[in-house]
């Protein structure tokens, strides 16, 4: 049994034609199901709970990256397969999953190629793509074995999916921690204007990349961590990967 969770922005009339096309296509494929719409007064957790009670086995998230992050974050510890139908802008996660548009998403649901992928967790909040923190002096206590200290101010980006052009495998059981230079030097600023590739090379030379399963992130300063581009959590924070926790329907052209 399928449950479709629509984001609240889809109530805008400009999406009504797209939704009608999707619903017709799903009906043709024999994949119709219960439809719920997120709103200010009803969040994803309520819908997931109701769906599970009624025997839903597949939840299809209709919306963008934020919708996906919101629903998956609400569906902890339930044995459900997720699907995605990207609508609107900011659909990078769907692209990584090999789902280009709403029509190919319907075909992917029909083909039902299910992969188990890792899910990230920061304190009690789940994330699927990445978390990031602004430049700061940070310490990572990792897996009870080693400490990573930044000698200079650095940006922290922790990836589960290969998003924003970074390489990360969501099936390897690791989160990829990137520590990047926090402030541009004069040379880099100048290079940025004149020779773009030099900037990238220079930054890459300064960057650290560490595959880590579990870590505790702290900073001497106040530090706010942005989770999946939507939610803020303050440091210190415990961050870990939950290997193969998420069952999700993907396309053949997925990037992992």
């Amino acid at each position, binding site marked *: 049994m399928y449950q479709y969770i629509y984001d609240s922005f889809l109530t805008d009339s400009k999406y009504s034609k797209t939704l009608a096309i999707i619903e017709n296509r799903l009906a043709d494929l024999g994949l119709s199901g219960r439809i719920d719409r997120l709103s200010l007064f009803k969040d994803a957790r309520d819908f997931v709970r109701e769906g599970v009670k009624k025997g839903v086995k597949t939840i299809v998230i209709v919306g963008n990256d934020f919708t996906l992050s919101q629903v998956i974050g609400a569906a902890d510890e339930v044995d459900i397969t997720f699907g995605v139908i990207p609508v609107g802008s900011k659909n990078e996660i769907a692209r990584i999953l090999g789902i280009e548009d709403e029509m190919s998403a319907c075909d992917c649901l029909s083909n039902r190629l299910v992969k188990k992928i890792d899910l990230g967790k920061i304190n009690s909040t789940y994330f699927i793509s990445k978390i990031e923190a602004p430049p700061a002096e940070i310490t990572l206590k990792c897996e009870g074995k*080693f400490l990573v200290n930044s000698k200079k101010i650095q940006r922290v980006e922790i990836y589960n999916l290969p998003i924003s052009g970074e390489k990360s495998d969501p099936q390897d059981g690791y989160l990829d921690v990137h520590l990047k230079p926090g402030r541009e030097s004069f040379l880099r600023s100048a290079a940025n204007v004149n020779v773009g590739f030099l900037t990238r090379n220079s930054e890459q030379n300064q960057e650290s990349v*560490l595959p880590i399963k579990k870590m505790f992130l702290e900073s001497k300063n106040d530090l706010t961590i942005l989770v999946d581009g939507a939610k803020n959590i303050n440091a210190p924070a415990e961050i870990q990967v939950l290997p193969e926790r998420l069952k999700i329907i993907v396309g053949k052209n997925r990037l992992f």
Partner: protein
Amino acid sequence: MFKEQNQKGVEEIETIIGPSVNVEGDFSSKGNMTVQGSVSGTLKTERDLKIGVDAKITADVWAANAFVAGEIRGNVRIGERMELTETAKIFGDIEVKTLIMAPGAILNGRCTMSHEGVSSREGDEDNLKKDIKK
């Protein structure tokens, strides 16, 4: 040597300890590793290790292959091949199968070389894999 591709055709991510990072403790990795910063404790990888010119390692080191341009203070066990550039400095004992030293490289310690390869001869490779799996 340090650019491998996995089964999916994606370039495998290296562990990179950049120049602005200090690692303390038992650090291990299954993949290739590049160190440009400082490490103290132990440093292990099942694959290739590259120590940059400004890197300072105060640790015992295990790897399959190593390319060293920086400084290591500790004992080093390399399964196959180790290359020291003219800027390399090693203060500790080395066990390796094949050693290549450039003029100017400093090695203050005992060097043991085996035709069979250090790791496999002493069963270190199995122990290393067990350690990394933990």
